């Protein structure tokens, strides 16, 4: 008898499997956008988290004091409908929109904003502090707010801080420690969507906010679903189990582009990938040859960026000259091609020959000038990255072509981070995604950040001077000039080999929703951008949805159950009669 039940279970699976697989789970009348992600949330608390997937949730839930235009990142009204600067540029007076409300119906006033700015500054909230550390906010009246900066701050009038509802957060914000422990599932916000349901490691549902100042979105809800495996996510998009996907692996792009129902978007927003050489300013021991700028230049010339982009990122991405420091490309200096480290192995070999690095013992590997230590470099492979191994394999090949050997070791991100801080490596490959304001990215390569975020283990006193200068330069053109000079200094040091401006590859089904917006225009992504304007703008294709399949599933399931039950009874009866006959 026990056996017949287990057989019944098997039959049940076989029967349901193929039929149910052909259909999606639509939810009746709810207009739902389903987005696939590969990066799970570690927390939904805006004072604790730091990952891209978390920022997307906060961007949707908390409207900023100001916002950024979809096309060109221009600062546009958000909660504030207008603002005015004082003559010295230190004080801004904001006027809020009329009748602002939180999603739970409570009024949203200047007090919420002033409280957020002042408390985050005093308590040092992770994601707020760099924006609010020099600010002081004063409530003038419910709709008027005055913000004063103690130093000239080129970032104003934007205050890069998520504005939180004081009536929810105040009780948790007793100090900077306590607030981090709050789970923040209250779902009270001012943006177009707010958190409605959260299943750890599986999905997060956001519901449209009825009180959004720009009106309720057409979508009723957004469901973000976590996939551990990017391949699974791609297949789910093709099968229509999700409507859009973030962080699509570049290896799937060709497959998806062949699908007429799917649009692939390679969104550029400042992210880049680099191979970093050890600049030698940290404590540890890089290979002595790396301290010679000529060797670093030679390595730069040896790398074929276009080949790496084609083979590792399936052609998704632009060859990088220098690093990018902002989602806005205007901060990147133009470097004349004659001054670039173009792919040229012959030139690289020439540089090394001229500098005295020749192969004295005939083993195919160059030695230090005058013989001695061979040029064998240690490259650290980030085992948490899906592309690091491929980049490493190519790097080995390119350096072999200029008479250097590379030995690989793999480290997870924690170990790699320690390794970099200790300076015990020669090179590694990693990537950055900068914010819109260039300041944070620029700060990483200052002397003060050695042993911390400065993973080039390099610094330059002129660069540091310029850094302080741009930090307080209110004239944007002048600031751009200064930053261009800084990036030129960094580029010429040849310590970072920027490989590619890597896109955030996203894909969506064209048969489900219309109205996707790229930010910035033409080149940017449609989701997970600076202010993610798409979600509020989406409308369903043809105004309707695919038929409801839940009934079908029920019928099929029920039918299968009947069949199985019948089989089970038959089997058990046959067995019984057989027993009786004995």
């Amino acid at each position, binding site marked *: 008898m026990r056996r017949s039940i287990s057989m019944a279970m098997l039959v049940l699976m076989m029967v349901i499997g193929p039929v149910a697989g052909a259909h999606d789970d639509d939810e009746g009348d709810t207009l739902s956008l389903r987005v696939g992600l590969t990066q799970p949330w*570690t927390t939904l608390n805006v004072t604790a988290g730091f990952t891209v997937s978390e920022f997307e949730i906060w961007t949707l839930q908390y409207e900023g004091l100001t916002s950024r235009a979809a096309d060109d990142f221009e600062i546009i009204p958000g909660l504030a409908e207008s603002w005015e600067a004082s003559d010295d540029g230190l004080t801004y007076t904001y006027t809020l929109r009329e009748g602002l409300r939180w999603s739970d119906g409570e009024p949203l006033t200047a007090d919420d904003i002033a409280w957020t700015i002042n408390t985050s500054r005093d308590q040092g909230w*992770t994601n707020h502090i760099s924006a609010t550390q020099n600010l002081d906010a004063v409530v003038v009246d419910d709709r008027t707010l005055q913000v004063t900066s103690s130093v000239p701050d080129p970032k104003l009038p934007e205050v890069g801080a998520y504005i939180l509802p004081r009536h929810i957060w105040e009780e948790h914000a007793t100090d900077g420690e306590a607030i981090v422990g709050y789970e923040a599932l209250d779902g009270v916000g001012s943006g177009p969507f707010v958190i409605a349901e959260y299943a*750890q490691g599986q*999905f997060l549902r956001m519901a449209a906010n009825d009180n959004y100042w720009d009106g309720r979105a057409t979508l009723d809800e957004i469901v973000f679903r976590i996939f551990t495996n990017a391949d699974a996510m791609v297949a789910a998009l093709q099968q229509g189990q999700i409507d859009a996907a973030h962080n699509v692996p570049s290896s799937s792009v060709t497959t998806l582009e062949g699908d007429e129902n799917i649009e692939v978007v390679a969104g550029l927003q400042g992210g880049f990938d680099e191979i970093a050489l050890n600049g030698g300013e940290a404590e540890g021991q890089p290979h002595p040859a790396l301290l010679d700028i000529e060797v670093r230049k030679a390595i730069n010339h040896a790398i074929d960026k276009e080949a790496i982009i084609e083979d590792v990122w399936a052609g998704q991405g632009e060859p990088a000259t220098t690093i990018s420091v902002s989602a806005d490309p205007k901060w990147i200096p133009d470097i004349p091609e004659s001054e670039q480290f173009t792919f040229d192995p012959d030139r690289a070999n020439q540089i090394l020959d001229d500098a005295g690095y020749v192969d004295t013992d005939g083993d195919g590997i160059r030695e230090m000038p005058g013989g001695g230590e061979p040029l064998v470099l240690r490259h650290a492979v980030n085992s948490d990255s899906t592309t690091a191994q491929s980049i490493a394999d190519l790097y080995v090949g390119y350096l072999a072509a200029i008479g250097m050997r590379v030995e690989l070791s793999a480290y997870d991100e924690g170990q790699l*981070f320690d390794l970099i801080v200790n300076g015990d490596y020669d090179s590694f490959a990693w990537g950055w995604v900068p914010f819109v304001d260039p300041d944070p990215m620029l700060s990483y390569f200052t002397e003060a950040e050695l042993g911390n975020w400065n993973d080039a283990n390099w610094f330059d006193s002129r660069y540091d001077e310029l850094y302080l200068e741009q930090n307080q330069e209110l004239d944007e053109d002048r600031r751009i000039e200064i930053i261009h000079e800084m990036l030129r200094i960094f580029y010429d040091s040849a310590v970072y080999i920027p490989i590619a401006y890597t896109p955030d590859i996203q894909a969506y089904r064209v048969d489900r929703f219309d109205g996707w917006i790229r930010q910035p225009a033409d080149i940017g992504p449609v989701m997970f951008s600076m202010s993610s304007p798409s979600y509020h703008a989406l409308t369903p294709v043809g105004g309707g949805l695919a038929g409801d399949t839940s009934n079908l599933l029920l019928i099929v399931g029920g039918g299968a159950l009947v069949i199985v039950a019948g089989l089970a009874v038959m089997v058990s009866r046959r067995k019984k009669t057989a027993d009786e006959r004995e």
Partner: protein
Amino acid sequence: MNLASRQATVDAVPDPPTGGGRARFVGKRAVGALITLGFVLVFNFFLFRVVQSDPVANMFRGRNIPAERLEQLRTEFGIDQPLPTQFVLYLRETSRLNLGISYQSRRPVWQEIQTRMPATVLLVGTSAILSALIGTAAGVAAAWRRNSKTDYSITSSTMVFYSMPDFWLGMLLLMVFAVSLGWFPVGGLVEAGSSATGLERMLSQIHHLVLPAATLTLAYLGEYALVTRSSLLDVMGEDYLTVARAKGLRDTVVRNRHAVPNALLPVVTLAAINFGFVLSGAIAVEALFSWPGLGKATADAIRGPDLPMLQGLFLVFSTAVIIFNLAADIAYTFLDPRVDRT
């Protein structure tokens, strides 16, 4: 991975109790299990304190964090204390089921484990039961028609499944049945964000369960088939079966009434022990199918690495083995006629 269970095979049958009653035997085993648990705790603590990594710094790569804040977090995670203090703290907190805070999710490890346990029990339980039933049935069939074509094909096909990496089998099933044919979903426990309840939700879960469960069932059943087969062959050589046949009883009766029950003893023991091991056995397969259970939690925790999470999972896996070993011992006293029952 069914490697762990493979190792257990060697010790599938515990030493028969010597003297004393069943109660004393069980009591002795229980005390042994407790001592083992103590060892696991000590081992677990020191294993993880060998690592001196700074997870806090790692967590915040790419963000502007003041140095004082990093220090605060180190204090928060207790990684600035001396080792002996940490050990005492560890014992005290573990006894309260406080296994620390996951670096990755910042939620209590025990809470994370509790959340993920049902998914693993569902997947691993289904495949453990199915593989035991199907495997045993296949083993009986093979032994009964020894050296026949049936025997040959059963033995060789189970050997093949037994010898391949389970996740590779999963990759093949995934490519054929999910990607190419589209019959089954490519991963997950249930449709994301689905508000379905009751039967519909259950059907969706079963639908998601098929591929990973089929993978693990195929991977595990070989061992049961082989053990059952050789055990049954041993039993069948014994005299009383010849007597039974001589009495004119039909083959099926001899098989089902006499041979199989006796031959199943080692299989049951094997199953009990295996259940303890399989909890940790599905790491690669869960990762492959994005199955949100303990195995995937382990695979995820390798990144980082999320040491408190790994440590907690390791403790849970070890405890499961200890408990099921004890269960196997107890089951054994009921099943083996040789055990003294006074």
